[in-house]
């Protein structure tokens, strides 16, 4: 197991943030990361900005299938079944 540092800097936080939100940091590193967040409002806001970015990007997804497309695809499916 690698030796975790006593602390990390804000500049480290912005590079580790994805591993943190993806829960890919080893336990000791996650503890050092959270210990930094515990005293640094700037990094709390940065991590929050990243989470909000993920939410905003998620808004780009379209759920609706255009009706004409659905009809066309169903026809194709029907044709395939008849083959």
């Amino acid at each position, binding site marked *: 197991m690698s030796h975790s540092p006593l602390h990390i800097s804000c500049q480290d936080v912005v590079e580790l943030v994805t591993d943190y939100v993806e829960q890919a940091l080893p336990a*000791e590193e996650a*503890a050092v990361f959270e*210990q930094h967040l*515990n*005293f640094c409002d700037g990094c709390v806001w940065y991590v929050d900005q990243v989470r909000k970015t993920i939410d905003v990007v998620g808004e780009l997804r379209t759920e609706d299938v255009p009706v004409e497309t659905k009809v066309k695809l169903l026809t194709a499916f029907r044709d395939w079944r008849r083959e």
Partner: protein
Amino acid sequence: MNAYKFLRPDGSGVFTGFRWPLPGRVPGAWVRADLDPCHSGIHACAPQHLPLWIGHALYEVELDGEVVDDAMKLVASRGRLLRRIEGWDEQAYADYTRMCADRAHELARGRGLQNWDAVIEPSVPEGGALLGFVAARIAEEVDGETGYHRERAGQTEWLRDRLQLSS
């Protein structure tokens, strides 16, 4: 075993947002977490961990099952809040912050670290968690890792005395 835990003023977990069942005349309900030192588990502080996790509301917790000490915190499979440590109030928080700021000045001025000395007062409004780090970080600048740990130990002693912590 008994330990301590900082929560947000509303009683939720600082990082998880988890709503802890708060104690009243009787302890709060037990909370279970599958013991996985990697990710989940009930996190709590032995006294020496307290300065690392300074927050606004402090509780005494009872931990049960396997308890792992991973250097920065305790991780347990089960825990419940026993009581709020009433002594940790706004005043104690402010006094702790001031104590850390004064120590930081002493360390920085003792070694003529003027640029470090200059960051102390502007950090005070951000509170005790930051000032505790600032003091330990300056001690590290002066004496390396030993200095950092010594300063954290001093902070632990201050909290232990002020809050009359038994364990």
